[in-house]
């Protein structure tokens, strides 16, 4: 259907009513130098086949993880996605479903969200998980607000081993709220002693990530103790939930709030988004959890049904009292995570996790065996690890790319003090042959 604009006569009438002579007059508040005073320079239209050829040529200048051997992680993970995921998640009933405002007629979507929530609880070891958030970074901001609200304290302490982008979003989130964000410097691993010394009576929460941004597994139990001893909450960020296939869930070592990025659960890399924010907590805090919670119940005839059990009432009423402005979720991404986890099953997730860990440790051993390369931090790792390099990591990456290998993250981009450090990730997608090829190229680079 074509949009029918106003007629010339109608435009004249509107201009007269607005008290201006021409359309141009409406833009006079825009500085002259910012205004385009000539027609747009658009080339003539292409024929359909020529246009497709042109766009294809542009698209071919991109590359992706199907064509490269990817050793890059740092918060976004290249895992194998079984074909069941697209088959189920792309069904029109799910793909086009809007937010469940009319809960009673959206049973399918609600059931999917309910199953997703249940799986997140199992994965994190927590009592309740919400219907999902935007991404790991904004979930970090929400967890901070929640902790401040729960403890009536004003400061959050976050380890610098938490994803730098999560920390940046946390600062944005809290910038105009009466919340102080203090960073706890971490050298590869968050120090329990330093955490103990830094937590005060004003600290609402200690936020750490495990495995952390450097790939190291934090000492969760001791950090939880340090937070709890001062009455602060312990918040754990999980950037790579596949790790929970073999690592202890945060709920078992004292986490009060678990936040995470669910991308690695069946979601494609998607050029950085949309991703899947996870938040889970203990039952006693459910009323302070942002977003919405789907529950299972029975109808008057005793048949099972799904409802929006809790949703932030401040979305509808008492808006002045709101502690979060989250009133939606990422249902399709959550659904994808649920289908992925259901496809793999409990043993499948453990198997993928173990495969990641074994391959990453093989790569770690081989790379640190090369002259000039050494492990940057002495800590246990899962599928990522940091090495110090004999030459600038940016140079290594540039040369590897010419051989079809996507190298690791140059840590200097976020941590100037670690400009010789390279953060590598090895998922179950990498074959032993690819790892050996990486090692061979590194050896040849010197």
């Amino acid at each position, binding site marked *: 259907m074509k949009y029918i604009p106003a007629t010339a006569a109608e435009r004249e009438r509107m201009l007269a009513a607005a008290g201006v002579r021409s359309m141009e007059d409406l833009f006079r508040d825009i500085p002259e130098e910012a205004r385009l005073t000539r027609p747009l320079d658009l080339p003539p239209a292409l024929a359909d086949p020529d246009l497709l050829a042109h766009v294809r040529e542009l698209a071919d200048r991109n590359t992706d993880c199907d064509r490269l051997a990817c050793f890059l992680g740092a918060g976004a993970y290249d895992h194998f996605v079984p074909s069941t995921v697209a088959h189920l998640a792309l069904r029109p009933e799910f793909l086009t479903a809007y937010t469940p405002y009319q809960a009673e007629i959206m049973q399918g979507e609600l059931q999917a969200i309910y199953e997703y929530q249940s799986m997140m609880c199992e994965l994190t070891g927590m009592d309740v998980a919400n219907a999902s958030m935007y991404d790991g970074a904004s979930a970090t901001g929400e967890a901070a607000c929640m902790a401040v609200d729960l403890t009536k304290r004003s400061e959050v302490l976050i380890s610098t081993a938490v994803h730098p982008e999560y920390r940046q979003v946390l600062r944005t989130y809290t910038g105009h709220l009466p919340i102080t964000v203090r960073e706890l410097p971490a050298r590869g691993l968050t120090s329990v002693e330093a955490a103990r010394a830094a937590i005060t009576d004003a600290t609402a929460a200690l936020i750490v990530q495990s495995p952390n941004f450097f790939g190291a597994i934090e000492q969760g139990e001791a950090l939880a103790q340090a937070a709890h001893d001062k009455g602060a909450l312990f918040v754990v960020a999980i950037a790579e939930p596949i790790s929970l296939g073999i690592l202890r869930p945060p709920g078992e070592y004292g986490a009060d709030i678990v936040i995470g990025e669910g991308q690695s659960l069946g979601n494609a890399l998607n050029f950085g988004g949309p991703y899947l924010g996870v938040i889970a907590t203990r039952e006693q805090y459910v*009323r302070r959890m942002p977003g919405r919670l789907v529950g299972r119940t029975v109808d008057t005839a005793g048949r099972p049904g799904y409802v929006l059990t809790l949703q932030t*009432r401040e979305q509808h*009423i*008492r808006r002045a009292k709101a502690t979060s402005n989250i009133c939606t979720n990422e249902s399709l991404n959550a659904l994808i995570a649920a289908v992925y986890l259901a496809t793999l099953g409990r043993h499948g997730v453990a198997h993928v996790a173990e495969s990641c860990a074994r391959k990453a440790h093989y790569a770690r051993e081989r790379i640190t065996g090369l002259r000039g390369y050494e492990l940057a931090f002495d800590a246990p790792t899962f599928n990522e690890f940091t090495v110090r390099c004999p030459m600038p990591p940016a140079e290594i990456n540039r040369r590897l790319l010419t051989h079809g290998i996507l190298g690791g993250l140059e840590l200097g981009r976020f941590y100037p003090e670690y400009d010789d450090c390279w953060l590598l990730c090895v998922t179950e997608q990498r074959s032993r042959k690819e790892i050996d090829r990486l090692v061979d190229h590194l050896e040849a680079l010197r």
Partner: protein
Amino acid sequence: MYPKELRYSKEHEWAKVEGKRVRVGITKFAADRLSDIVYVELPSVGAEVKFMEPFGVVESVKAVSDIYAPVSGKVVEVNAALVEKPETLNTDPYGAWMMVVEPSNPAELDQLLDAEAYTAHVGEGH
């Protein structure tokens, strides 16, 4: 209708002076108007509450309302059983107390209404 021994706020809380302490709840008028109460949020023991400022929340199937402290002071007791059974606010509003406060300024109690004035405030027939 409204117990004579209690004092009332215009925001529909009752206050019962027990020696140096004050027990606090919401009136039958408030509970009736809210209808079925499903959730109540109370302060922690040790918290400081301020005269006519919100100290908690009641949520019914119809509405969510702040509840106001009829006196300033320190919370020394909280009715934890009420959190488990918020519906007792409907069935027994004067038994379903919310908190006990140690007043920091007992003179504030003089600003509250007596049963007669409160009845006039909510209108005859309630």
